[in-house]
């Protein structure tokens, strides 16, 4: 991100996006932009979050004012919320202007910063941190809420996962929206969404069963069925009535003749059947796309045009992007937690393509990296892996016990050089957890 003074949005006079706001809100936005500009000039980052914080401090109702009369969709989850926000925004963009917090600034300050510059007629597709969904939902009055999944993210805070599901459930029951679009294959999401009056259930076959969660209704044991030929699955509690709801949409493996390997189709109960031609890799992104498609259609989009638009999304805030580093082609994947790492490992180029794996354990990552032992690193056998950054020693020990050939490096360039030396094609895959990824995104953009 280049910190140039030109990047500061101009103050608008005459007709502009803030004309519908009151004086207090306008002043709050101007002050926020000023701080954001100073932050950029001082080379401290994009400044949007700190600018939004200043704006919110001056006008606590600013989020509601900025939403005004526009239609809003909120996207929340542990994993995939940035990608799904991009997908839904792309699908709706075929039907009119859309504003979105596309860089993943997903707490109220980041959302305010995104809306402050927006066309008042544009629909808003907003990624929301799972801990802030109740606050943002109350202020933004969305028509549509997408709930993708809930899993352990930050281990030192893992006891909060159930609490988040309970808060979602309470909020969705108290503040009804036109619809909730929810993943029918995640028991915690189903528990949370069931309190809403109208739910569009999407069968994604995407769930992370390895978390010690138990039945959210009774504490009993959830039993997951084995996937059939179409890839769909089912689940139920062995102790109570809680079970997978009948989906309105679901994802199936594309078994048509001539279908690409690992391809998917989205099916609707009315018989609609649409192949997904995605630029994004991995099964998990097919699940994200199915959720986005169901939401877009519920919000009035045409299924064909929306599905075509999904295929145009290829780079999500730097994720899945390939960049040149130290003479090698480095593809950048983000994975924040065991569920995300399992999906990212499934997206890797086949062995023996080497991998750089970067692990931090800062507050935003979770301070306890024990979750490394819940990631199936054994699947990296046959590849050369370079462990990087603050918790590289934790990762090195994990890789030793997984019997994966590995080394340790101090810098990204050093790690890529080491890895590229073992690559037949000069291509290297990077998987980084949250703060490590943010650091690299800035590093490779500079």
């Amino acid at each position, binding site marked *: 991100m280049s910190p140039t003074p030109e990047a500061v949005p101009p103050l608008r006079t005459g007709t502009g996006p803030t004309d519908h706001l009151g004086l207090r809100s306008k002043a709050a936005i101007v002050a926020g932009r000023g701080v954001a500009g100073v932050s950029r000039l001082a080379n401290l980052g994009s400044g949007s*979050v700190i600018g939004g914080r200043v704006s919110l401090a001056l006008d606590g109702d600013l989020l509601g004012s900025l939403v005004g009369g526009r239609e809003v969709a909120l996207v929340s989850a542990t994993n995939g919320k940035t990608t799904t926000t991009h997908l839904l925004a792309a699908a709706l963009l075929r039907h009119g202007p859309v504003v979105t917090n596309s860089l993943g600034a997903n707490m109220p300050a980041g959302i305010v910063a995104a809306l402050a510059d927006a066309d008042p007629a544009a629909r808003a597709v907003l990624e929301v941190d799972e801990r802030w969904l109740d606050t943002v939902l109350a202020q933004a009055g969305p028509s549509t809420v997408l709930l993708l999944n809930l899993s352990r993210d930050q281990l030192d805070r*893992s006891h909060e996962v159930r609490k988040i599901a309970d808060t979602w459930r309470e909020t969705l029951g108290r503040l009804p929206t036109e619809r909730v679009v929810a993943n029918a294959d995640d028991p915690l999401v189903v528990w949370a969404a069931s309190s809403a009056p109208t739910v569009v259930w999407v069968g994604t076959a995407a769930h992370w069963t390895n978390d*010690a969660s138990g039945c959210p209704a009774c504490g009993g044991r959830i039993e997951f069925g084995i996937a059939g030929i179409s890839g769909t699955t089912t689940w139920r509690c062995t102790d109570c009535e809680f079970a997978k709801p009948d989906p309105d949409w679901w994802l199936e493996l594309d078994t048509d003749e001539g279908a690409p390997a690992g391809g998917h189709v989205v099916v609707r109960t009315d018989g609609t059947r649409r192949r997904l031609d995605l630029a994004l890799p991995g099964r998990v992104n097919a699940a994200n796309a199915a959720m986005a498609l169901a939401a877009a259609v519920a919000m009035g989009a045409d299924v064909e045009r929306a599905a075509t638009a999904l295929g145009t999304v290829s780079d999500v805030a730097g994720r899945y992007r390939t960049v040149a580093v130290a003479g090698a082609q480095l593809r950048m994947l983000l994975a924040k937690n065991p569920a995300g790492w399992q999906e990212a490992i499934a997206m890797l180029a086949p062995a023996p393509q080497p991998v750089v794996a970067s692990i931090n354990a*800062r507050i935003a990552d979770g301070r306890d990296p*024990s979750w490394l*032992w*819940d990631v199936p690193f054994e699947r990296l056998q046959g590849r050369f892996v370079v462990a990087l950054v603050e918790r590289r020693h934790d990762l090195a020990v994990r890789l030793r016990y997984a019997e994966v050939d590995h080394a340790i490096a101090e810098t990204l360039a050093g790690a890529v050089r080491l890895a590229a030396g073992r690559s037949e094609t000069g291509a290297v895959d990077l998987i980084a957890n949250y703060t490590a990824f943010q650091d690299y995104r800035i590093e490779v953009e500079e």
Partner: protein
Amino acid sequence: MTAAARGASRESAVRIGLLFPALLGTYGDGGNAVVLQKRLEWRGIPAEIVEIDAGSAVPATLDLYLLGGGEDGPQTEAARALGTDGPVHRAVADGAVVFAVCAGMQIMGTSFASKDGTAVPGAGLLDCTTVKTDEPRAVGELLVTPDPAWGLPRLTGFENHGGRTRLGPDARTLGPVDAGVGNGNGTEGVLNIDLGRGKVLGSYLHGPGLARNPALADLLLGWVLGVDRGDLAPLDDTEADLLRAQRFSAVDRGNLDGVAERSWKDRLFGRN
């Protein structure tokens, strides 16, 4: 069969039971099973991990049982599955070893506090009881200097628990806590020795504890094989030593959060 006999006459694989991974699998403690299995295999001793789901029959014939951390609801469910006189009790009486971490340790005690604070009966294999107090949740780096009789180097781990464990007269601890909370009285770990032939060791060390502390892993393997820890073939633990040195250094600098040092920019902007 005594523990020594189990080791001396070993023809079949060492069988490591991972108890109720779907209930007690929150904190990566399943890694303890991998660590033990590999440390046996690398020494030419065949080893097998047996995952035991709650609701299925628990075999009483395994050499070693592992329990990990979990949330309040699943913890109560796991205690129910374990019972107060079940297959694990019989296995311990017959010489088996149990290593139980966090919620797993709490349910091996005589009782523990449920979500609402009421006492739930535990397996009674450790002379301790875990209660809820007004003290804040213990979350952060945990560093222990073991009592000399253990012959162990310093122990490092990450703890994450709300309860405080009160020790009974039959409990022996790993040693004093240098950093962190541990049991809550300045000590960490609980061992019972008067349980027939077997041994049950409880701890709050996540990390997983046996990955961060290879000597502790070998202590358990020595018990299982009926040999002294020092008589086991040495393994290359260079990488674990580097990890341990990094954690000791972080704690010695007073960084109990386990978080890397932050720049002034990070502090100013509330970034991590």
